[in-house]
């Protein structure tokens, strides 16, 4: 039997019962569509987080007090509670070869009051180096200066979001705000950086580090130290030297601090998102499996219904392999066409998700090829048994079948 004839038979068999064919195909369409959509959403989320993190500066090392639990990522760090990172450590780190800039930081949330407006946000005590280390840009005014830092000055620089929150209708520059009941003058506003994940500078107010430590929170430790490394390829060497120097300085055997490179953060988050994507895709594949069972169900019904036809085909000379091929191709055609429309559906879903601005999704060629091959394989697997059953019918019994 020629391929063209098999396709002709398949076409007329599938068209003979359009409603049933359509409904069975719908199972595969939904299955493939949701797998494609889920993978594209996962990929989109990964890409967006990657670009945000790279925007924070790719040659950045972060030192945090406390120990990051191995295997549990940065989420479970003892940041905020541990007080092992001190001002003296700044000088130690600065001396290390390869370190270009060091930005010690103390952050804490306080209530902030401007004329009439009121917000609760993160106040960040910083020195001028914060700006180059974190790649941030000024919209207006000036950033915290060395003079502010030395004089324990009451100057504040507002993140873009905070600026509009506190001063919705006027220029904040030169206005007074009260942070934890202390008066500050706004000397600068940052331009919006956008999408920097969960700790973006848009939603922060910056004050001099000395003011933060001595006036606002009254502590002498640091909550974080950001270091920009001169050469990106030296990241690991610099990380090791910082680690060794701080161990000596702290007089400890085991580190009471953690050094995280941008790469660590990226790989941890990528892992989380990959797991999440896999989870979503496996839920979606359950519907694909159900769709496959639908195919098998339909094919078994078809074989029973067409028992006489199979008997006749055998009587006029069809071999087992002819019958087997015919029914297998029918099942594969169902899943293949279903797969095609499923890909369209998945693409449509991810397009809508992107269009609504929820997440910038990416339909990869890989997931499309995967969906096509998976749907074909499903056709073969779930069509195999019905086709085999059809091919093994005895022509005499089949012809007699009522």
């Amino acid at each position: 039997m020629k391929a063209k004839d098999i396709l002709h038979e398949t076409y007329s068999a599938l068209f003979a019962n359009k409603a049933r064919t359509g409904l069975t195909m719908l199972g595969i369409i939904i299955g493939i569509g949701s797998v494609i959509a889920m993978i594209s959403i996962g990929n989109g989320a990964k890409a967006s987080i990657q670009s945000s993190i790279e925007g924070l500066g790719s040659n950045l090392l972060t030192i945090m007090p406390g120990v990051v639990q191995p295997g549990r990522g940065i989420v479970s760090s003892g940041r905020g509670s541990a007080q092992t990172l001190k001002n003296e450590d700044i000088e130690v780190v600065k001396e290390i070869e390869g370190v270009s800039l060091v930005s010690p930081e103390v952050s804490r949330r306080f209530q902030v009051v401007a004329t009439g407006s009121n917000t609760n946000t993160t106040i960040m005590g910083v020195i001028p180096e914060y700006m180059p280390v974190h790649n941030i840009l000024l919209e207006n005014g000036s950033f915290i200066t060395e003079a502010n830092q030395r004089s324990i000055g009451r100057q504040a620089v507002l993140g873009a979001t905070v600026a509009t929150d506190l001063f919705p209708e006027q220029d904040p520059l030169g206005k007074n705000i009260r942070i934890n009941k202390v008066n500050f003058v706004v000397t600068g506003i940052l331009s919006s950086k956008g999408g920097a994940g969960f700790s973006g500078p848009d939603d922060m107010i910056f004050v001099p580090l000395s003011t933060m430590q001595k006036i606002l929170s009254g502590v002498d430790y640091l909550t974080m130290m950001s270091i920009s490394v001169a050469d990106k390829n030296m990241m690991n060497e610099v990380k090791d030297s910082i680690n060794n120097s701080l161990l000596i300085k702290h007089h400890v055997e085991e580190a009471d601090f953690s050094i995280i490179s941008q790469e660590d953060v990226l790989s941890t988050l990528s892992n989380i998102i990959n797991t999440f994507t896999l989870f979503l895709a496996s839920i979606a594949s359950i519907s694909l499996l159900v769709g496959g069972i639908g195919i098998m169900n339909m094919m078994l019904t078809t074989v029973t219904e067409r028992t006489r036809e199979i008997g006749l085909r055998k009587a006029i000379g069809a071999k087992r392999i002819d019958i087997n091929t015919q029914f297998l191709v029918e099942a594969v055609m169902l899943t293949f066409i279903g797969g095609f429309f499923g890909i369209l559906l998945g693409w449509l879903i991810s397009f809508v998700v992107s269009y609504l601005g929820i997440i910038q999704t990416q339909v990869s060629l890989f997931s499309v090829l995967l969906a096509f091959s998976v749907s074909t394989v499903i056709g073969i697997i779930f069509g195999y048994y019905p086709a085999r059953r059809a091919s093994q019918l005895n022509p005499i019994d089949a012809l007699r079948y009522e």
Partner: protein
Amino acid sequence: MIEVKNITKTYNTGDVSFNALNGVSFSIKDGEFIAIMGPSGSGKSTLMHILGALDSSTSGTYFLDGKDVSTLSDDELADIRRDKIGFVFQSFNLLPRTTVLRNVMLPLIYDGVKDTERERRAKEALFSAGLDETHFHHLSNQLSGGQIQRVAIARALVNNPSLILADEPTGNLDSKTGEIVLGTFQRLNEEEGRTIILITHEQYIAEHADRILFIKDGLLSEDPNGHEKRIINNK
């Protein structure tokens, strides 16, 4: 050309075994029109299945065109059916929602015959079976009973078989249409020299053939005096 020697067929259902054929022997020459007649349960259908290479015998030999069919595998039997045998069934067994032409071409499709050749041979067979060209592109379920059976006869003819096997071909037709179909068989036999075996339980139908073989309780017999052949004129 058909040589059947001492064929038996035993069915085993659990502990009980049943002999449907108890040593049947006969031979049929090329171009003969034979009727095999017998009541239901006589072994008539079993014999037809064996002659049609749909089933194999338990013992004995069956030579068709000099080839021993009784020892062949399933797929080899399929080849025999495709190349040497044309079936006409009581219930027609055309593919529904399929054109007349496509139905007739079906055996050629399994034979891998080229498209143009297929169509030519299918049309030739349809003309032979006496169907008007206007019906060639109709769907099989748009035809009358008599027309359907002619399509089925054309399908049996299309692969130019050594043997046409008709199992109660008039069973589902009224007597007038039945006569037309019997007339078609007589014409194919006389004008084209086709070898035809007609299986029936009715004496009247059987009398349209040259020879009648009677089967009863799995044994075959033939009236030595023969019978007067009924000839249909409006062929």
